[in-house]
């Protein structure tokens, strides 16, 4: 806490991002992987915010990213607008859609929300496939220009990680505020939230709009990096992987999605064949759900907590007979546990 000030996650992210920017350019293959990891991390962060903090299981995060990608693709290829103009649209459009979507789905139970968002994503994919005049149909849109000033790989890599850092900063700001606490209350118990004076529907709309904006920004980066956008580019599969990465890393933790993306995306690259990826993802999910339902960060924290509790017991046994266990244990945990820094502020 004292080491990292009031925003430990943002500082850790800054460190990791700086490292990624420094090391990745040494090897073109790494650079490509790290750039894609950053983009996916952004989309996965959007899933972590909605599922991990508010309990909204959205299967449309890939679709939000796709809208962002198509928006900028159309802007730059058809109207010749600069990429930065496309960014405004790439953030505003999915954000607005997510806001409206939240208004519709927040009364539904969790599983129904998942199905409704999945249906929406499928619908959008059908639109993308058939609206030839705008999206180019099956063929998609090719020749999306790179972002001015960031056409070189290592520069674009920095841009990507700056976006991830900004998303983490905003996310951490939110979770350290009353609105973040309110989201956690809503996830835990909506009736409780109402009794606390929380207007649940507007809060969830604002949250999902934020989440949609993050995913849209991810789509914008994707479109300008790959330079090609088609209905298969950011499909339902992308939504599911985003969610999966968040859950594996620890959806309730701010940096959980980033960790999950690093693990699954980079380790996935080590596998011999693309076909083995599904096997790897599925295996990772089953393993995590069995061993660490709160994700890797949750597992690390549980380990650290247990160690601290043991140490506190040992100290209190050795020293004062009536040592206060609570505050002492907490102070110890703050001081010697780096994993705690990744805990969400709640």
């Amino acid at each position, binding site marked *: 806490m004292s080491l990292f000030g009031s925003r430990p996650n943002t500082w850790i992210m800054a460190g990791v991002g700086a490292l990624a920017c420094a090391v990745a350019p040494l090897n073109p293959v790494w650079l490509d992987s790290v750039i894609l990891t950053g983009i996916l991390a952004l989309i996965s962060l959007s899933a972590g915010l909605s599922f991990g903090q508010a309990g909204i299981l959205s299967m449309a995060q890939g679709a939000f990213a796709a809208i962002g990608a198509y928006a900028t693709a159309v802007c730059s290829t058809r109207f010749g607008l600069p990429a930065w103009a496309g960014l405004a649209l790439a953030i505003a459009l999915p954000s607005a859609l997510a806001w409206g979507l939240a208004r519709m789905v927040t009364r539904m139970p969790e599983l129904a929300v998942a199905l409704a968002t999945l249906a929406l994503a499928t619908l959008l994919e059908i639109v993308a496939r058939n609206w030839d005049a705008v999206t180019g149909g099956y063929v998609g849109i090719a020749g999306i220009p790179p972002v001015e000033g960031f056409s070189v790989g290592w520069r674009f890599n920095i841009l990507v990680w700056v976006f991830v850092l900004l998303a983490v*900063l*905003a996310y951490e*700001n*939110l979770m*350290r*505020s*009353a*609105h*973040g*606490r*309110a989201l*956690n*209350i809503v996830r*835990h*118990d909506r*009736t*409780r*939230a*109402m*009794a*606390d*004076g*929380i*207007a*649940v529907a507007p*809060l969830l709309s*604002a*949250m999902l709009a*934020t989440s949609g904006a993050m995913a849209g920004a991810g789509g914008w980066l994707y479109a300008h990096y790959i330079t090609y956008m088609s209905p298969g580019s950011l499909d339902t599969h992308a939504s599911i992987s985003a969610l999966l990465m968040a859950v594996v890393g620890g959806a309730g933790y701010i940096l959980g999605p980033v960790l999950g993306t690093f693990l699954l995306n980079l380790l996935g690259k080590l596998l011999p064949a693309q076909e083995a990826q599904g096997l790897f993802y599925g295996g990772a999910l089953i393993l995590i759900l069995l061993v660490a339902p709160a994700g890797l960060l949750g597992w690390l924290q549980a380990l650290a907590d247990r160690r601290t509790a043991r140490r506190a017991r040992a100290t209190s046994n050795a020293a004062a007979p009536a040592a206060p266990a*609570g*505050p002492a244990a*907490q102070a110890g945990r703050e001081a010697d546990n780096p994993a705690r820094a990744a805990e969400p502020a*709640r």
Partner: protein
Amino acid sequence: MSESKLVARDVRMAFGGVVALDRAGVEVHPGRVSGLIGRNGSGKSTLFNCLTGFLKPTAGTIELDGRDITGHAPHEVMRAGIARTFQTPRIDFQTTAREAVLCGLFPRVRHGFLSSLLGLPHALAEERAMQREADAVVERMRMDDWAALQVNKLSMGRVRSVEVARAIAADARYLLLDEPAAGIGRDEMRVLADEIRSLAERGIGVLLVEHNFSLIRMLCEDVTVLDTGAVIFKGTPDEARRDERVMQLYLGTAAAGEAA
């Protein structure tokens, strides 16, 4: 019509063909503890939920200080100054008692979601003020010694205290307690009773929905008795004890209360 009070008037609540409340009513006055009793299924909880906005009455009105608030959403009712607790504590047992109190301060928040997201100075200042306020509430409710503990490490009586503290944190003027004595021991009940009394002394109007007649007698100046959705008695607890119909309904419970 600006006398301060919370009134439910001629409330009728029908779930399909089942009439849970029929011309039921109750009044809560600032600085006073009122009781609402009745058997299981008599409509106490339904009336309670109508008062707090969790149910919209089929007919009748809920008035707050002369203003009609019938059918307002629960969070609006809460923001208007009517707080409630739950019979089964609805609380995240992983959080600390202090955090739970902090959650109760949400109606104080004036800044928007976007300000929180961007970490704007006024949002941060408000957050610091809220943290201080939470400490003040903890101190006022004499929770200092155990406020840092996780709720799952607290006794049921203390969990009830946390619920009360959370409910009134944002300056509620009326507090509706749903069977606060359920599941707690006698000593803890006395502590809770003291707490409720001191809230009333500070000017909060309290409505106690209870099974436990001895707590009602300890605290309430007046009591309303419901049976099958209608009010069958209004008066002081002592008068209620002398009322034949009330005693008939309450024989089992009241006898137990007497013995206690």
